[in-house]
């Protein structure tokens, strides 16, 4: 089954929409769902033109497609456990929060907190991701615990903060402090990074571009050749400011202190 949601023109297009109801499972029972626009509860049909193609007997066979001006729609795919969500353009904050299964594909950019506290499943973003991509929540000690987030463009600051499990792959560059407070999982940064892995306790972070403002509390333990990538990595352990036993690997040619 395919559910296509195309945004209607709204009188106040700047208002954020909270749409945690948009997960594949919910559409098995129809499209009689609601979302919040600011402090007003709206029927899904007030916000979207809704087209349903085919039928499905189980949620994993449901594909939800979002089109139009979706950049301010938040929480799409929150608590999603199966099925597929495809977003043609940009998507608002908290896309895929607590996701435990299924696939979210984003054609444009994702706003902040993409895949926050994710448990499993897969998020694929063709554009850039905002701040706190694949991160934790205020006050909570665990961030993303499993699954994978792949971003073809760049990610903002605090990417993979508190990463606890799963893999985060940013093909472009990260902003400030990727992998800060990391305690597990794997973070791969294809481009550059500023001050990676502060206070890291465990897990692995690889940076293939340039590291700006390397933190002073990582101890170099050697080098490692990654044959499949044809690159030598400097290997550090840290963060020794903490009790950290994490691994930070930086492409050898590109490490400027």
């Amino acid at each position: 089954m395919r559910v296509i949601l195309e945004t209607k023109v709204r009188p106040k297009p700047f208002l954020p929409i909270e749409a945690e109801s948009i997960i594949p499972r919910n559409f098995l029972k129809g499209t009689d769902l609601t979302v919040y626009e600011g402090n007003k509860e709206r029927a899904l049909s007030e916000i979207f033109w809704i087209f349903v193609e085919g039928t499905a007997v189980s949620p994993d066979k449901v594909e939800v497609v979002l089109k139009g001006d979706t950049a301010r729609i938040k929480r799409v795919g929150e608590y999603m456990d199966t099925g597929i969500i495809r977003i043609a353009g940009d998507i608002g904050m908290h896309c895929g929060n607590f996701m435990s299964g299924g696939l979210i594909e984003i054609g444009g950019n994702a706003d902040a907190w993409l895949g926050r506290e994710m448990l499993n499943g897969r998020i694929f973003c063709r554009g850039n991701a905002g701040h706190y991509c694949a991160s934790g929540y205020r006050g909570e000690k665990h961030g993303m615990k499993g699954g994978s987030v792949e971003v073809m463009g760049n990610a903002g600051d605090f990417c993979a903060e508190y990463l606890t499990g799963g893999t985060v792959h940013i093909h472009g560059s990260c902003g400030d402090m990727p992998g800060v407070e990391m305690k597990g999982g794997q973070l791969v940064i294809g481009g550059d990074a500023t001050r990676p892995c502060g206070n890291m306790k465990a897990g692995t972070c690889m940076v293939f571009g340039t590291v700006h403002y390397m933190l002073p509390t990582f101890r170099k333990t050697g080098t490692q050749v990654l044959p499949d990538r044809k690159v030598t990595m400097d290997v550090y352990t840290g963060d020794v400011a903490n009790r950290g036993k994490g691994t930070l690997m930086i492409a050898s040619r590109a490490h400027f202190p």
Partner: protein
Amino acid sequence: MTELLVKNACVIDPLNGILLETMDIPVRDGKIVSSVSSAADVIDARGCLTLPGGIDSHSHVCGTKVNFGRYMSPEDMRAGRTARRGKMHVTSGYYVPTTFGNSYRYSTMGYTTVLEGAMAPLEARHTHEEFTATPHQDMLANTLFDGNWAIMESVRERDFKKTAAIVAWTLAAVKGYSIKLTNPGGTEAWGWGDDLSSIHDPVPNFNVTPAEIIAAMIEANELLGLPHSVHLHCNNLGKPGNYRTTLETFDLVPDKNNARQTLYATHVQFHAYGGTTWRDINSKAEEITRSVNAKPQIVMDMGQIMFGRTMTMTADGPMEFNLYCLHHNKWSNHDVELETGSGIIPVLYSKKSLVNCVMWAIGLELALLTKDPYQCLLATDNPNGAPFVKYPEIIGLLMSRRYRDEEFATLHEGTGQRTAIASIDREMDWNEIAVMTRAGQAKALGMAAQGKGHLGEGAEADIAIYPIRCHAVDPATEYRKVVEGFQKTMFTIKRGRVVARDGEVIVEGANSTFWVNPSVPEDLSVRNDPEFVRKFREYYTVRMDNYPVQDVYLPRGKCIRTEGAL
């Protein structure tokens, strides 16, 4: 004039010797009376269990440290969120809920009076502000004196009258109810990052010992004729082997008051550990209860822990630092100049942890091995042992051996060797539960005279009606019904007004705060003591005139004047 008649109530009122009698309760203008007119509103209790409003004699719900617990815990606020509904404000939080969250949950459980376990005098205004935002319970504030410089100096000089005068001035100034000592002397040592390891260690720079502070404060308390006794959080909380300190402390306590105990020892579960390290920790509940059973001058509360996440918060700063070193989670500390300290850290009590299982067992053992339920009251040191919403489960555990056995079977396998819980047959009856949750508290706090904790004529009409038909339920086997029944009242009546019904709070509250103003002869008043005034000016960062809590903070304050022997 407003009148109310509660009909067909199945009443347990231990202080008046009423046990499961079906009767009517007439109420006029907030008090229980002998009869009401035919115009009275009528509530039909339909033979359900009807008790005096519940009283929590030791709970942390209001003030600087509690609010800091909330402030640092956005992760907890994600639990237990409710939207504004009817007369109810928004609430957030599970183990450190907002003030309205606390108030609504207590109210729907039938609780109408709560003693805040620890108020730092310098920050009393904050506690009182939150009291007014906890509108469905009458509130009392335990006032901290454990590291009070002026007190320690007077104890060193062995001037009990002066000790009493300082207590009197402080209680009146900060609108406190009773004397609280938390790790006496230890909180001052923590000012330097140290602690005391026995009640005979001298406090650094002050040359007094915890034992001397405790003894002197008991003297002062009785000299002033305060309604409640000294309320003590013993030294060495949470340390394996600490039961010796607790027993030594109990041995210090004379029997000085016919109406009530001379010492209230709080959350004794945390003070009843044998062993030498966390590896060989074991229960010393038998030793502790043996002492208490022989000493009518002591009342304690359980300090029961229940499994799950919660927040520990106490004036015992050094203890919290030790706990932080074990858990490596977040740690807050807040020392209060010239007075006390405090610490806060979140914890998870897990059935996988042998230590936690032993703690769980000790709390229950204390209650079950204390012969007189008036001597061991039900409390979790909310939220330290568990949030108070767990009380119904504790009641279930106390009333049903089967429930205990079922729980025990899920615990760490080493629990049986470290504790005696599995061999205890006692199952508490309805009356004992009523004592442990209201009558005992009222007596221990000296609040029975204020009309709390009983349903006799003249009492405050604080009444809890639970959907439990005692004659039709066997708590030993149907403990689930007991637990559910105590979770939500059919009616909670506060001062003659129905405030909660079937788990919903239905009115805006308007509580009272009880506080004590002991009379002190003018020549003893510390206000007239130039040395006291000078030290206040030089060492506090707040002026003496700005220190007292103004009346405006207690819109419905109830002052208890005491005439002591000073």
